[in-house]
Each structure stands twice: as C-alpha cells, then as structure tokens.
C-alpha cells in the first residue's frame, strides 16, 4: 500500500490548445461581468476570436512539429496530426460562428420584441464563453485516446451546446430545443457509456491501444455489442439517421448562430474521433464496423433527402440537409481505406464553410424579418441583398456538389474511396441522393429570386440592418468554399500528413 506514487508525465504542449481556449474562456467570463454593458459585446467577441485564433495557431505549430504520433498522461490523450488538424478545424468553425453571433439580438416567431430582444445581449459574455468551452471540449474530444476521455470530452462540449441552444431563455422554441437536445443527447451518451462498459468488459482495456490488444482474448459478443452501442452514441452526435430525430427541432429552435456552429463543429469533432476510434481501437472488427457505417450512411442519405423535400422552413430544410450530409461524411469511413480517410478530412472543410455560411445567411434574413425564415418569405431576398443571396446560391449549389464550391471535389473523393472499397451500390446510393437533393437546394435559390415586381422595389423587411461581422463571415465561408475547389492541394496534403500514422484495413 505504501509504494510511492508514480506521477504521470504531463506533456503540456499537447494540452496547450485546450488550455488556451479554457484560459480565454475563464478570462472573458471573469472580466466580462465587471465591464459596463456597452462594451461587453465587443470585448467578449474580440477575445473569443483571439482565443480561437491562438488555439488554432498552437495546434498548427504542433502539427508542424509532430511527425509521429505519441500519447500523454498514461495514454489518456493522443498527440498526433489527426488530433491537431481536427482542433484547427473546430477552432475555425468556432471563429466563423463568432461573427455570425455578434449581432444576434432577437428571437423569431413573433416574440414580443421588448422581451426577447434582450436575451442574447444580456448573455453575450456567457454566450461567447460557452462557445469557447464548447470548442475546448471538442479539441479535447478529438484528442481522446481512451474511453474515459472520449466520454468526458463528449459531455463537455455537449453540455456547453445544450445551454447555448436554450440561451435565449424567453423564447419557448429555444427552451424546447435545449431540452430536447439535452434529453436525446443524454440518451445517446448513456448508450455510448453502456457500450464502453461492454467494450471494457470484453477487452479489459480502456485506452484505444489496450482495447485493440485485448480484443482477441475477450468475450466476442460483448465486444461487438459494445462497439455497436458506441457507434450509436456517436451517430447521435453526428445526427445520422436513424439517430437524427432531434436534429430538425433543435436546429430550428436554437439561435441560428448556435445552429451554424453545431452543424459544422459537432460533425467535425465526432467524425474525426470516430475515424480514430475505429482505426486504433477496433482494427480487428473492420468487417463489422464498415458494414454498420455503410448502412447508417445509406439510411441517412435516404431519410435526410426525402424529408428535406417537404420542408418549408429553411432551417429545417438545412437540418435535413445536414442529416443527409452525415451520410456522405460516413461513406468514406465505411470505405475504411486511406483514400476514405483523406476524403473525410477534405470533405469536412468545404462542408463546414457551406453549412456555417448558409445558416449565417438565414440569420441575416431572420434579423431583418424578425420571423422564422421559410421558402415563402425568402421571396425578394435576391434583389434586396444581392451579396448574401449570391453567396447563398453558391452554398446551395455547393451542397449539391456542383462548382464553384469545394464539395464538388469532396464528393468526388468520397465516391472514389467507396468505389475503391468495391461497394458500387453505395456509390449509386450517393449519386441518387445527390440527384434528389437538387430539388430542395434549388428550391431555396428559386425562392430567393422569385417574387413579384413589387417585391423587387419594396423590400419586405425595410432597410436591412448593418451587420458587418455576419457579412464578413459569409464572405469568409464563400472564400473557403471556393478556395477548396480552386486550390485543393494544400488541404489534401494536410489530410495525407495527418493520417500517415494510421493503418487502414482496406
């Protein structure tokens, strides 16, 4: 009992991105409450952006330094390029969300403006702090190398997101979104935790390496059941069908900047971690998980696209589009080959840009109408706000997989990876889903440029409020989306470098 404690070595450098974000969050929270109301918003937004940029730079430096994968604190976390690239991605998504959230001031759906208007303004410091902690949680999550840190990271960013969804507490829709996300998210986490216990029981290991090593002499049934339950728990976060039922309601009810952030960043974190988990902890079960994920991807593509066809609310439409893209993003993981890994990492960047950008445009329209954006009240938008509408059109064409956005290449990579795996049927499913998706994405474009001649001269919402942070964000998303098509090589190289330490089963 009296043997001396062996303290683990702590690699502070590898923890630096997470600590940067947490430190910034604490600073903003502690200082922000003492500032006069007038300067809180610029203060919180500036330091949130600065913290995210700093964390991204730290991760970038680590990415440049680490040419091999190591672990830290008794294998709890990984220090490798995949984690660092994931951290750069989530920090970038957070940075874009900072701009979208800046002038978020009112809740849609006919709330009394005198009441609802103040919600975000009153909580702007806390809102940005939660955004920072959510990104910190995701940065921790993508580094996770054991089932314990995986679960803790998941809860960490999920709790921050639950609160962010409900942060406009005077809007019933926001409270409903927060509560639904909390309950369904907790359900998913519980399944993941249950599965983790099975995997621990079946392999005797908690870290991914131990699980892979102990898989052979464990109870196969428990091990496979645990793997399936962990996949279900992660699928809830990715909002893949049939575990997507929370997505439309939460995306619609949450403040639009939060939706923009969630739709991109949660997917990035969960998918990067899924890739790491499956390749390092379950390399011997590759037949099982590739087929399981192919099935989930197929259901997501079918369900998301069909449900999106009937939506009138643009946020719900984009939510179902997000479900269908969960399918596209799971396809390269199902392929289980190195090309698939690269395709996933590539696809995530233009997807995040399109997703945040399109929700930002929805937020702009929401702010000028003070109502939920539907396909009907988008009418005339194209004439009133030419830049936003052109950007939205690019985003919609991008979602389909057409130029001038990088998702064109992303889809090409994904289909090639799946084809290389020998699953032509899955390629066909993807192509059919793409064709179906043309209908609802073009419906958005048509809605923006429709409307009578009257609408063209008399804007429905009066003169649009000036919202330069949001416009800058839309511009940034547009640049990112187009740049991934024009100069894809740097991103492809980054993806290749970050996967070099992993071995793929197929």
């Amino acid at each position: 009992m009296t043997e001396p404690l062996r303290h683990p070595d702590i690699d502070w450098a590898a923890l630096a991105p997470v600590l940067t974000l947490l430190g910034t969050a604490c600073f903003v929270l502690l200082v922000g409450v003492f500032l006069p109301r007038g300067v809180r918003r610029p203060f919180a937004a500036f330091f949130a952006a600065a913290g995210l940029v700093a964390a991204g730079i730290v991760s970038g430096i680590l990415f440049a330094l680490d040419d091999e994968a190591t672990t830290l604190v008794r294998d709890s976390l990984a220090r490798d390029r995949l984690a660092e690239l994931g951290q750069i991605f989530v920090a970038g998504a957070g940075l874009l969300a900072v701009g979208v959230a800046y002038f978020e001031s009112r809740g849609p759906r006919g709330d009394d403006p005198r009441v609802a208007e103040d919600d975000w303004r009153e909580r702007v410091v806390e809102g940005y702090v939660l955004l920072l902690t959510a990104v910190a949680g995701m940065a921790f999550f993508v580094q996770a190398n054991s089932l314990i840190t995986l679960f803790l990271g998941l809860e960490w960013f999920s709790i921050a997101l639950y609160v962010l969804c409900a942060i406009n507490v005077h809007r019933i829709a926001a409270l409903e979104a927060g509560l639904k996300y909390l309950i369904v998210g907790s359900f998913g986490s519980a399944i993941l935790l249950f599965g983790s216990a099975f995997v621990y029981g079946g392999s005797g290991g908690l870290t991914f390496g131990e699980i892979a090593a102990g898989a052979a002499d464990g109870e196969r049934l428990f091990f496979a059941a645990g793997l399936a339950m962990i996949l279900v728990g992660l699928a809830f976060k990715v909002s893949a069908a049939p575990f997507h039922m929370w997505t439309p309601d939460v995306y619609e009810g949450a403040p639009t900047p939060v939706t923009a952030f969630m739709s991109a960043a949660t997917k990035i974190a969960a998918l990067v971690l899924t890739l790491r988990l499956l390749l390092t902890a379950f390399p011997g079960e590759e037949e099982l998980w590739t087929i399981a994920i192919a099935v989930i991807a197929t259901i997501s593509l079918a369900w998301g696209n069909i449900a999106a066809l009937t939506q009138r609310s643009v946020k719900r439409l984009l939510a179902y589009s997000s479900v269908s893209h969960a399918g596209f993003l799971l396809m390269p993981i199902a392929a289980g080959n190195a090309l698939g890994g690269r395709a996933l990492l590539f696809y995530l960047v233009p997807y995040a840009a399109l997703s945040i950008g399109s929700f930002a445009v929805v937020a702009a329209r929401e702010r000028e109408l003070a109502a939920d954006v539907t396909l009907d009240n988008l009418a005339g938008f194209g004439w009133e706000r030419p830049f936003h509408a052109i950007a939205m059109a690019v985003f919609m064409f991008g979602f389909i997989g057409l130029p001038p956005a990088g998702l064109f290449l992303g889809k090409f990579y994904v289909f090639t990876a799946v084809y290389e795996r020998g699953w032509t049927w899955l390629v066909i499913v993807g192509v059919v889903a793409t064709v179906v998706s043309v209908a609802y994405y073009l419906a958005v474009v048509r809605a923006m440029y429709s409307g009578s001649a009257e609408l063209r001269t008399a804007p429905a919402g009066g003169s649009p409020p000036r919202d330069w942070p949001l416009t800058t964000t839309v511009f940034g998303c547009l640049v990112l989306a187009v740049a991934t098509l024009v100069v894809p090589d740097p991103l492809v190289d980054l993806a290749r470098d970050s996967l070099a330490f992993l071995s793929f089963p197929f």
Partner: protein
Amino acid sequence: MDAGEILVWLVWIGAATALFASGLAVVLFQNPFYSALSLIVNLASLAVLFLLLSAEFVAAAQVLVYAGAVVVMFLFVTAYLGGRADAPWAGGPTLQSFFAVLAAGAIAVEVVVVIALTAGDRLTDPAEISDAFGSPAEIGRLFISDHLLAFEATSIVLLVAAVGGVILGTTAPRTVRAEGRAEVPER
C-alpha cells in the same frame, strides 16, 4: 460462530430489512416528499451493505452523492413544485409500468442465478481481484496517476455545467421589468 460474525449478521439483517422496507416505501407513498425521504433511508442502508462488502469508497460515494446531493435536490424540487405529483399506479397499468416490472423481474432473476451459482461454486471464470481493489486509497491513487487527466477533465465538465445552470437559471433583471415575463410558460 464468534461474536464478530454474529455482529456482522445482525448488521446485515438490520440493513437488509431497512433496505427492503424503505424501497417499498419509496414506491408506495402517495406523497413524493415522503418517497424522497424514504429514498435517503434506502440509499443509506445500501451504503451499510457496501461497507459490509468492504467497498468503503462506494459506500461513502453513495451517501455523499446520492443521499447527500441528489435526494436533497429531489426534495428541493418537490418543495418548489408542491407535492402533488401523480400517484404512481393511478389510472391502471401503463406500458411503462409493464416494462418496469419486466426489467425489475429480469434483474431479480439475474441476481438469483448469480447467487445460486456462487453458492454452488459453479460460477465459471470468476473475477480475481486483489484485497486493495475498490479501497479508497487505491481509487485515490488511480485518480492522481493513471486517470489524472480524466479526473481533472471531470472538474471542468462540472464547471461548464455549473456555469450553464447559472446562465439558464438567472433572468436578467431588466428583461423581467420590461414585460412581466410574457414568454415564460405558466407554472
């Protein structure tokens, strides 16, 4: 049987009886306040059983976390909302109660099977654990060595949750004055 063993048996019988009786009381009381109070007794007697099994840490955690924090929160909520929750079996059996009975029955069968196998020495492949397993010292040692990072991350998760709770729980004063909380649903 020496005096020590007799004492253990007496404590076991006392704790087990209290556990059973308080468990029934939780379900049968009409007033949720009494149910919550019975739950404290239930958890405390369960903690005694854990102590008899040399699981000191679990016993302490049981009392601190469940009896101390969780049930006290139940009591607060009950006090806020008033003790007029639905009577548990009112309105006849529902699908939920059917599955609850089914799940409880499954657990009961499982417990009986395990006890019978253990009693007959027919449990194949039983776990081999050292004496120190589950002791507070051993758990503390794991917290500051192998699972140091998880331990620290847990505190951050709890901090985030606490900050979130405060954000959602407080209503900005100016907002309340503006319109008399028009958007808050009627309680």
